[in-house]
């Protein structure tokens, strides 16, 4: 205040900073001794001292506020971020940092936060365009080669992502650095998403297969860039699937609605982006093992089936072997059988031969028998002869030849006489018979028609050689035969009258009167 620069063009008094700060403080505190101010709570913090620090904001300005411990205890509501509230208090300054702030005595709820209301309105509008439609969502690639990450190149977020990717499945990661907070954030994020999509396939910088847009947790204002329409549209239009990982799990930004997948944290985004390599290796090894086992089992099953069929078919060797064996056994038995048969027969024959008597012996025996029988016969004959002789002798002794001789003589005489009688008698009877026979013969001869014929008579016979006995039995023209004593002739009836008489006479050859 005392010193002035010699060449100062102005006579305006010069304040020290402290003086000015105090002047401002007096003015502000005097003017805004007691105010009511409406705004949304943001950046709320409850300090361990019990004081509450927070900001009140609307879409134009932010007002820092503090609620001392004493007042905080008396507040009717529990303040939290996003809450639209009306606070009563006084303004004061904090000269050490060139700041001013509201000292809150009272706080009341003022309804839905203006930003949230704005957010909701924007969400409805973009949803109506179909940017959040489920059918727009694309499946993430199973195993991306290149992963594009849109985030701040510094801080925990990119480190978390890279760590988790390295753990699960190390990949080629392209980081597109952006500001994730502040006025330019939205434009940078949108440009990065479009930039990745603009990379040509097979270019010097590989085109990512999946994008991660990530930011750590923060206040609604901190995350506000990810609610901007330009970001939401860039995500919706991206040809590359996008995973959003903005804020904490409870924070919701509009990019989450447009993204193909929403991850609660950047780490979770990395987990969505790649599978676990070890698990894949296991899956491949597993499949490989099963492949080999399945093939082997298929072969083994077929071999087993084939073996079963082959068994059912029968082993020719075995079949032949069995048959051969049977043949061998049969052949052996055959040989044995013949041998045994022959042995048996030989033994039988020998036994029978042994039982046979030699013919000489037989003859001798028979001879002996015959001799014995001859002797017996001789003896018997001799004995019989003796007996007969004795009997004859006994009978002869009783015979008397004189009796027989007399009787014989008597019988002889009688026989001689009878014979004589017989001879006489017989001679006579034979002479008589002969005489009678000669007489009868003569008589018979005299009766024969031949004798009549000899006397000149003729026998007339008809054609049937029957005698014609009467003239009435003839008819004129009938052929007849005429038998004379010296032969036969044929004639016809009715020729002349002369022979008629002779014929009539001849027809009675048997008449006895003609004799």
């Amino acid at each position, binding site marked *: 205040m005392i010193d002035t620069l010699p060449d100062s063009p102005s006579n305006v008094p010069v304040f020290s900073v402290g003086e000015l700060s105090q002047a401002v403080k007096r003015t502000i505190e005097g003017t805004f001794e007691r105010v009511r101010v409406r705004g949304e709570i943001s950046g709320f913090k409850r300090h361990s001292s019990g004081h509450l620090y927070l900001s009140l904001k609307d879409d134009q300005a932010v007002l820092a506020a503090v609620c001392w411990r004493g007042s905080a205890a008396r507040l009717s509501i529990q303040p939290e971020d996003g809450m639209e509230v009306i606070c009563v208090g006084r303004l004061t300054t904090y000269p050490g940092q060139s700041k001013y702030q509201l000292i809150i005595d009272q706080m009341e709820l003022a309804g839905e936060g203006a930003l949230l209301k704005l957010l909701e309105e924007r969400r409805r509008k973009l949803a109506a365009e179909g940017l959040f439609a489920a059918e727009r969502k694309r499946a993430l*690639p*199973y*195993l991306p080669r290149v992963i594009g990450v849109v985030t701040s*190149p*510094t801080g925990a977020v*990119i*480190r978390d992502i*890279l760590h988790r*990717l*390295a753990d699960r*499945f*190390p*990949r*080629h*990661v*392209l*980081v*597109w*650095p952006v500001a994730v907070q502040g006025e330019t954030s939205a434009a940078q994020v949108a440009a*990065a998403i479009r*930039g990745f999509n*603009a*990379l040509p396939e097979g270019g*010097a*910088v590989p085109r990512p297969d999946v994008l991660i847009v990530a930011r750590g947790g923060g206040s609604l204002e901190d995350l506000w860039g990810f609610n901007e329409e330009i970001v939401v549209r860039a995500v919706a239009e991206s040809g590359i699937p996008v995973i959003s990982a903005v804020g904490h799990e409870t924070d919701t930004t509009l990019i989450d609605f447009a993204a193909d997948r929403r991850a609660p944290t950047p780490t979770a985004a990395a987990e969505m982006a790649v599978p676990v*390599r070890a698990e*894949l*290796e296991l*899956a*491949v090894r597993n*499949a*490989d093992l*099963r*492949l*080999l086992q*399945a*093939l082997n*089992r*298929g*072969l083994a*099953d*077929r071999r087993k089936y084939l073996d079963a069929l082959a068994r059912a078919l029968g082993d020719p060797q075995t079949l032949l072997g069995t048959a051969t064996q049977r043949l061998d056994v049969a052949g052996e038995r055959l040989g044995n059988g013949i041998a045994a048969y022959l042995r048996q027969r030989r033994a039988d024959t020998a036994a029978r031969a042994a039982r046979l008597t030699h013919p000489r012996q037989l003859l001798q025996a028979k001879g002996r028998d015959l001799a014995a029988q001859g002797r017996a016969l001789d003896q018997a004959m001799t004995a019989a002869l003796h007996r007969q002789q004795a009997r004859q002798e006994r009978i002869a002794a009783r015979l008397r030849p004189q009796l027989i001789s007399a009787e014989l003589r008597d019988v002889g005489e009688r026989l001689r006489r009878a014979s004589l009688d017989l001879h006489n008698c017989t001679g006579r009877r034979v002479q008589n018979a002969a005489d009678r026979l000669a007489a009868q013969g003569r008589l018979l001869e005299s009766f024969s028609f031949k004798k009549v014929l000899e006397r000149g008579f003729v026998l007339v016979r008809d054609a049937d050689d029957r005698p014609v006995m009467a003239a009435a039995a003839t008819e004129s023209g009938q052929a007849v035969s005429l038998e004379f004593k010296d032969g036969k002739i044929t004639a016809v009836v009715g020729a002349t009258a002369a022979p008629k008489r002779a014929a009539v006479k001849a027809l009675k050859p048997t008449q006895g009167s003609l004799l």
Partner: protein
Amino acid sequence: MSDDKHADIAAMSFEQALAELEAIVSKLEKGEIGLEDSIDAYERGAKLKDHCEAKLKDAQLKVERIKLGPDGAVSAEPFDPAS
């Protein structure tokens, strides 16, 4: 010859190759493939497995940072987040 028959595998993504491998395994396990075909299927399965393993082996963390040239041209440079 079999290389020609399975030439398409080289262009397959990991999940395509793994999916076909698992399909082949499943068919073989169910005995849906004849003997001749099952040997062909095995050969293809083995090739698919090789392809999958090659894809898995190609697992190196390579981190790059996009760099925009003054004309807006995009290039990449090595990036270490710790620095």
